């Protein structure tokens, strides 16, 4: 922004200053100038550093000013706000049309959508509550809880600041355009329009980021696929679904590891688990939880009949170290190695390194066979078990994972989310969003992003409580 100001001063110095002094009040001059000099923060880190409280009263003042700043709706110098832009209902034209009103309206709509996706009003209430907690004198008596509150506060404050900064930037660019027009400064107007266009494109990315605002969305995850009833055809379908996710994850640049795989008797898999390592893997993949339905002429049917098969998909976040984990007692575990019968030891050569762990109180199990040593497989199975128990606990507390629970226990018919039809016509349709494509092959090769994003959009935008 200082570039704009410098340019104006160089080319239109005397006239510019004269206009300001002649037209505006002194206080308005100060406001305008201070805005021009303000430094913009275009992207705040997702995890701001922990806030360390100094004194209660100082904190109260700090957070009060933050709340006040958040509450005051920013506007242009002539009083135009984001809500005002939306209310004007200006036409949204193609990006290439150099109309600042069109760009501004598109950006304003994006800001509105982002706030809805972040549950803006809830976020503000939550932030106020956390600020209140942070101001208590006895906060650090419980360092673990204090750290958790501080981290969440930092995260929410970061999100709010980022959106507010984006909003402010929009309004200041509009001010610059109007100022440039008053001064007949074509270069300045052109640069400001270009800045608005860039903002319009960035806004689309920010809309996407807002879809992944859940607490676990940034986590890596395990994806499990389980064949439904129906024998060989269902197992083959389960293998196809698992291959689809491997391809999807690899195309997105995630690291994929097969943790566990139980092959079918003739073809495909009965069940398999992959680990998908990368940021926001869970955020995206959670859209795949549910039952996937295939209709095709089965290659395993010598009579060439059409078959319908099902595969259940579960997605489990791998929580970071900062999260609370379910405590696991070693004595609650039963650890099994496969083919453990016989004399063992020096009597046998083995490459069977698979390990299965059962958590006796809950019945939750984890099997790992990818590693080439039993020691390593036990470590991997423990990690999977930890994630499953953590998720079980979350579901018990929040009941927001009912879909996951149901999808595993009611495989044949419950919670269908998508149909893949290969015969007599070809189509893949998401039953939750009605989004459909007519090329099943590309979907099965991992082209899932459109389905995922349409589901994430639909499920978040449905909760209209901004």
């Amino acid at each position: 922004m200082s570039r704009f100001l410098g340019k104006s001063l160089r080319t239109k110095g005397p006239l510019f200053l004269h206009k300001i002094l002649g037209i505006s009040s002194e206080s308005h001059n100060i406001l305008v100038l201070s805005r021009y000099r303000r430094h913009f923060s275009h992207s705040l880190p997702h995890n701001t550093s922990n806030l360390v409280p100094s004194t209660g009263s100082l904190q109260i003042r700090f957070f009060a000013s933050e709340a006040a700043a958040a509450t005051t709706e920013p506007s242009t110098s002539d009083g135009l706000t984001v809500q005002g832009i939306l209310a004007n209902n200006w036409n949204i034209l193609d990006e290439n049309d150099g109309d600042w009103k069109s760009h501004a309206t598109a950006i304003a709509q994006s800001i509105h959508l982002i706030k809805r996706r972040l549950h803006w009003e809830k976020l503000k209430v939550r932030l106020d509550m956390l600020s209140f907690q942070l101001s208590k004198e006895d906060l650090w008596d419980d360092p673990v809880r204090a750290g958790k509150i501080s981290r969440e506060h930092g995260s929410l404050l970061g999100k709010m600041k980022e959106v507010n900064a984006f909003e402010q930037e929009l309004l200041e660019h509009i001010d610059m355009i109007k100022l440039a027009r008053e001064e007949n400064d074509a270069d300045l107007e052109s640069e400001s329009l270009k800045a608005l266009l860039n903002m319009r494109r960035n806004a689309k990315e920010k809309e996407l980021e807002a879809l992944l605002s859940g607490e676990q969305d940034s986590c890596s995850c395990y994806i499990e696929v389980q064949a439904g009833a129906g024998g060989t055809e269902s197992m083959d379908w389960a293998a196809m679904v698992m291959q689809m996710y491997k391809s999807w994850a690899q195309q997105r640049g995630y690291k994929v590891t097969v943790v566990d795989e139980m092959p079918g008797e003739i073809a495909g898999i009965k069940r398999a688990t992959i680990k998908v390592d990368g940021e926001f893997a869970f955020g995206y993949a959670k859209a795949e939880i549910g039952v996937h339905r295939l209709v095709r002429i089965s290659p395993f049917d010598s009579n060439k009949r059409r078959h319908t098969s099902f595969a259940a998909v579960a997605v489990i976040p791998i929580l970071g170290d900062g999260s609370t984990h379910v405590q696991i007692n070693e004595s609650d575990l039963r650890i099994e190695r496969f083919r453990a019968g016989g004399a063992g030891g020096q009597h046998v050569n083995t490459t069977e390194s698979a390990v299965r762990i059962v958590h006796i109180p809950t019945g939750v199990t984890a099997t790992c066979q990818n590693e080439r040593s039993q020691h390593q497989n036990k470590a991997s199975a423990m990690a999977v078990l930890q994630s499953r128990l953590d998720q079980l606990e979350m579901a018990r507390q929040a009941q927001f994972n009912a879909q996951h629970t149901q999808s595993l226990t009611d495989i044949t018919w419950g919670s269908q989310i998508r149909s893949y039809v290969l015969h007599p016509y070809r189509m893949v349709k998401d039953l939750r969003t009605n989004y459909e494509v007519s090329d099943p092959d590309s979907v099965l090769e991992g082209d899932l992003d459109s389905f995922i994003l349409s589901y994430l959009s639909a499920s978040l935008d449905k909760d209209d409580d901004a």
Partner: protein
Amino acid sequence: MNLTLSSVYRPYSFPTLLKSSSFSTLSRPFCSSALSSPPTCVKPQVPLFLRPPIYSTKLCELKKWHDWAKGVAFSIGSTFVHSDNGRDSSILFREMKWLMEDAVEDHSMIVDDERVKMRIGIDELYCLWKQRIHERRPFQYVVGCEHWRDLVLSVQEGVLIPRPETELIVDFVYDVVSENEDLKSGVWADLGTGSGALAIGIGRVLRSEGGRVVATDLSPVAVAVAAYNVQRYCLQDKIELREGSWFEPLKDMEGKLVGLVSNPPYIPSKDISGLQAEVGRHEPRVALDGGTDGMDALLHLCDGAGLMLKPGGFFAFETNGEHQCRALVDYMENNRSGSFCNLEIRADFAGIQRFVMGFHQ
């Protein structure tokens, strides 16, 4: 009682493979210090996954091999299981996948490229899988390494393949070291070290402590391979290798050891002929044959432990199972009474009473 077996199975000779590999061209980072070869100058083989990818093969040729190997494995079905509790098809499939993992340099196998970089020629790949199936050559010898705990240990003919049961001994050592300060800074001994598995496992437990490990083996091949493995894990300063029979290389340490571990030969001689083909046909008999009752070495270790350990020193031995464990404990309580305390029998993951441990009085 002293084992005097001097015969050692000669390793397979692979002159072509040996020519194609040299330490300076290893694809993995290598310790800077030079490998000091033992007196007999046995040169250890480089495991497959560490060889340079100097071969090139068409992707379609590799796929042809893959289909052939899979067909061979599939035709085995449960034959090996019924014969001697060997592998079934599904595990052979996994072994085949792991063999490719070690042999092929770029695991992603980009389809755009028509050629694949390999660490062995495609002909050798056919040869290795035939050995695996037709000769029942252990998979670990085929790829030249065994994954054990979080280690990848070089193994070859003439060296016992470390067993998963033996992984637990390192856990026992970790537990006892955590509770006893004295055991952290003294000298440990691993007798009959083979590939060096226990010595390296314990060496890593003692990594930040002052303790050291002396590992001994009768076999010059085993000593050479163990030295190679020790060097790969940069533990030369902590682990010393000595060649010789049981306690003979440790005469200078009588009454000074803080810890003693061993996985000695413990199979009764009469059972050797009935062993699984991978074991009986290929692994060194000197590391398996425990004599008439399978306890010759174990009893010798008990006598030696009484002599070599300092007061408060810890020992752990692997055995054939419950019968040997009980016999060993009886022997120590009756014949060496006053020497040992806190004798304990521990089970392996299959629930078989496998380990005897205790402390010097």
